[in-house]
């Protein structure tokens, strides 16, 4: 039974994908359309306002797709244990596999959309060279970070159902506090210091290094992302370990 974890994961991802797209006509194309729709809005509303940003569409797009991935994953992960109550109560499957499978499902649909977006980015004059491969480790690191945040939300949500609601409420606020549609330069000096406490700011910085400026990610910000991810992983592992045995009685 030891090496069956991979298969179990595979089937859970399969199940999640089935559930996600079964009744939708366009299937995974939605993971392309959703950010595209926002891109059109931002382009329409803000491109004049932030005209000092070079190639504004590409700037917004590179931030948006990662934001959509982040918020979507956290949303799903915060519900993952609650959704799988029946399975958790009746099958001897390691509970951590449920959030992992959820994250993988999100990753699969993110990547499916991302491939299409690369095409769009090239159309928007992204300068394609070998440095674009830096995006692969960034996606992996970002996925681990997202997973840890989602695991914290998911574990606590079992005990206090308003964690999920609270997350949905704070989500738009976090969106506007993260420099996605604007550059951090427009924030007055005295506030911009606080913006740097937002881990997403640092992630977006290195993502834009690669996908907007077309160069290698900056060292200081990359290191910061690595440390942030490490800390979140440790915190989430601690919270998960503390709470997992109480899941069954609270689900």
């Amino acid at each position, binding site marked *: *039974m030891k090496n*069956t974890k991979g*298969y*179990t994961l595979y*089937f*859970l991802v*399969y*199940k999640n994908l*089935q*559930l996600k797209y*079964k*009744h939708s006509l366009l299937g995974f194309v939605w993971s392309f359309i959703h950010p595209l729709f926002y891109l059109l809005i931002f382009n329409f509303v803000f491109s004049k306002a932030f005209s000092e940003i070079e190639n504004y569409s590409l700037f917004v797009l590179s931030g948006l797709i990662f934001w959509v991935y982040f918020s979507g994953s956290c949303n799903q992960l915060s519900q993952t244990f609650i959704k799988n109550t*029946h*399975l*958790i*109560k*009746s*099958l*001897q*499957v390691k509970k951590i596999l449920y959030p992992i499978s959820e994250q993988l499902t999100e990753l699969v649909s993110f990547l499916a959309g991302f491939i299409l977006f690369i095409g769009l980015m090239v159309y928007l004059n992204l300068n394609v060279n070998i440095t674009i491969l830096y995006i692969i480790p960034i996606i992996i690191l970002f996925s681990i970070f997202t997973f840890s945040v989602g695991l914290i939300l998911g574990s606590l949500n079992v*005990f*206090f*159902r*308003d964690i999920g609601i*609270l997350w949905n409420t704070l989500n738009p606020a976090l969106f506007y506090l993260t420099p996605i549609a604007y550059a951090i330069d427009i924030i007055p000096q005295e506030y911009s210091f606080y913006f740097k406490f937002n881990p997403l700011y640092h992630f977006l910085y290195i993502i834009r290094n690669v996908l907007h400026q077309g160069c290698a990610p900056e060292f200081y910000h990359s290191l910061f992302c690595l440390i942030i991810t490490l800390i979140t992983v440790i915190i989430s592992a601690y919270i998960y370990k503390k709470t997992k*045995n*109480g899941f*069954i*009685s*609270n689900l």
Partner: protein
Amino acid sequence: MKEIAIELNNVCVSYLHNRRGIYSIKDFVLKGGIFSPFEYKSVLHNINLTVYKGESLGILGRNGEGKSTLLRTIAGIITPTSGTCKVHIEISPLLALGAGLELELTGIENIKIYNALSGNFNKKTISSVIDNVANFSELSMEQLQMPTKMYSTGMLARLAFSSVVTSQPDLMMIDEVMAVGDKGFQEKCKKRIHEIKQAGATILFVSHNPDEILEICERGICLEHGKISYDGTSAEASKTYLKLFN
């Protein structure tokens, strides 16, 4: 010659229970839960139980006395708070009504996922399992291709029961599923359980119907307030159980 299948030594299980019904942060603040929102509520106390291979054990007890918790502990889904629980044979998934059924998916997809999650990944065996389930449950292929949310309770029970009993498990745990199916299906289930028993499987059977316990099990235990109050023949256990209500 008797081989031990399941060994429980001084097993205690307690739940992290939400004191004063605090289920949101609002309650947490208003009801002063800040100091101790959770308390341990004990469900099973010092359970000592040895089940031998091939034995069939009936578990009786009032609602909420810890029967399902006992099964889940043996299935490894709940870790005991103290004591040890050793199972020396392979466990089949816990059979409870509609467990793990994903209502949006079709019957066939559910069978596949259920099998995969319980450790059967082989494509060939899965397709033969689907045939067996279709045969046993008497659900037509058309019905199996419908999302299970359209099933009646009886059909769900048929699907859930069939997907477990068509295999030949070493240890079968049944948690009150018989009550739902119609008379014909109930008889069929009992027959199948007897077959599985004859083949040498160990059976743990939870029911509220002492007659069923008598029919299937030789040994019976009675749970009262999280303790085993009686352990012996199923006939005596049934009597003890019936006395609880007089």
